[in-house]
């Protein structure tokens, strides 16, 4: 097949942040026990104003950012979302709304369309309403999501459905994919739970078994064939859980490489989890994004490979997986510059094996996991 893509890039120089994730708020009507938001999210009170967000969008676009995700928390909680979408679209962003669908109704679907919103991604928790209710901490959310997914397709949007997979829903994968097909999804992200934030807190109760995972991969493969035979264009993206891998993921394509997150209070991060690291991140209220991206100590800290330790430092694969994930290294070893313990060459890989054993011995139901809400978050807030 001929390649129509342009692969030329500047030699070794830091490129532009092509992706901007705007976490508009940490407020959310759901309480998903796998949420990747920080445990102490309730400590964040001062959300950026509409004018401050517009300034962030303007600066990021001038730097070359082109894909924009409105996320959270639940971004629909912000009543200025339509204003921000309109401004983003005027600036030339491709605008993605990453939502639970709570807070959506037909009027808002059309208002967002009129504002220029390009795409809506809706999260589903399960195909079974009881499992969905237990995981999201809401008995009403599931039916609402299904209704809104249909309305989104009727309004003509491209729609991606995102399903976070874990031991309590992964065995339903066949009916989950069937549901997504029925809802008219253009693509489905079958995202094995990444174990950060609240998911890390609930890790032993979320991690599936190897057998569950293998069955899920086989189901996905079977569905891909089935969809292809029907000529149905619904892409299935299966995100493997790195606790069952022997090499780490190239997290975010490398630290501060193409991705920039702005948190609800203006903290600028190289990914939405990095806030947990023991370092100070600059704030968009105080410094221009251009300076933060190219010149701040935080954004330069893990660029390139000078920071790497053994076994990464002398490893032939260090540019392929960039040493894995800094947050995972820190959470598991206490050292953010360590090799991601997912790698079986890491001296800390036994921590991953121990986590798998711990999960195998955990018999909690989905209802027994810690829900992500402001009350639970207070426990983690520093005075």
């Amino acid at each position, binding site marked *: 097949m001929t390649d*129509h893509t342009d692969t030329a890039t500047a030699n070794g120089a830091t490129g532009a942040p092509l992706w901007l994730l705007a976490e508009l708020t940490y407020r959310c009507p759901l309480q998903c026990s796998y949420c990747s938001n920080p445990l102490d999210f309730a400590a964040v009170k001062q959300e950026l104003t509409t004018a401050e967000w517009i300034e962030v969008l303007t600066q990021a676009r001038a730097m070359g950012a082109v*894909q924009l*995700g409105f996320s959270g928390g639940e971004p629909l909680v912000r009543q200025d979302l339509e204003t921000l979408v309109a401004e983003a679209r005027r600036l030339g962003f491709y605008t993605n709304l990453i939502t639970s669908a709570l807070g959506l109704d037909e009027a808002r679907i059309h208002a967002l369309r009129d504002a220029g919103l*390009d*795409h809506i991604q809706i999260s589903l928790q399960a195909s079974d309403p009881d499992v969905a209710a237990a995981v999201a901490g809401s008995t009403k959310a599931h039916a609402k999501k299904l209704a809104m997914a249909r309305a989104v397709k009727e309004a*003509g949007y491209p729609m991606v459905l995102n399903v976070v997979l874990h031991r309590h829903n992964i065995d339903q994968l066949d009916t989950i994919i069937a549901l997504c097909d029925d809802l008219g999804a253009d693509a489905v992200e079958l995202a094995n739970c990444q174990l950060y934030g609240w998911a890390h807190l609930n890790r032993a109760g979320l991690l599936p078994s190897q057998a569950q995972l293998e069955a899920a991969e086989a189901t996905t493969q079977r569905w891909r064939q089935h969809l292809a035979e029907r000529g149905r264009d619904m892409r299935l993206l299966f995100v493997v859980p790195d606790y069952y891998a022997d090499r780490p993921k190239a997290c975010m394509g490398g630290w501060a490489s193409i991705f920039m997150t702005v948190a609800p209070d203006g903290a600028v991060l190289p990914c939405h989890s990095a806030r947990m690291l023991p370092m100070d991140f600059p704030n968009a209220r105080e410094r221009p994004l251009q300076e933060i991206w190219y010149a701040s100590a935080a954004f330069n800290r893990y660029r390139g490979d000078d920071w790497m330790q053994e076994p990464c430092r002398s490893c032939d694969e260090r540019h392929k997986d960039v040493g894995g994930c800094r947050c995972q290294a820190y959470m598991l070893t206490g050292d953010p510059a360590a090799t991601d313990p997912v790698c079986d060459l890491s001296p800390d890989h036994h921590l991953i094996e121990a986590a798998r054993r711990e999960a195998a011995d955990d018999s909690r139901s989905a209802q027994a996991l810690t829900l992500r809400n402001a009350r639970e978050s207070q426990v983690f807030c520093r005075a």
Partner: protein
Amino acid sequence: MNPNTDSSRVYYLRRGWRLQWEEAQQRHVLLYPEGMVKLNDSAGAILGQLDGQRDVATLIERLQAQFPEAPDGAIAEDVHAFLADAQQQGWIQHD
């Protein structure tokens, strides 16, 4: 693979996808939900001609006018091959 596409066919970008010139990257990109294809010059020039009205023959004429130095038949060959491939990849559709 037979690269020939019907010359009377009218192609358009997949619904919800967008072709855009990116000044910062100095190239055309194809934007879609949570993703981007960085296009080379010829792919950008061909997709830039799709307006939902022009058929393949018209695209070729317009590109020939735009690039008169191209050897005879080269543009037509490129356009047919590209459109077949772009359709295969789900970038474009036709009625």
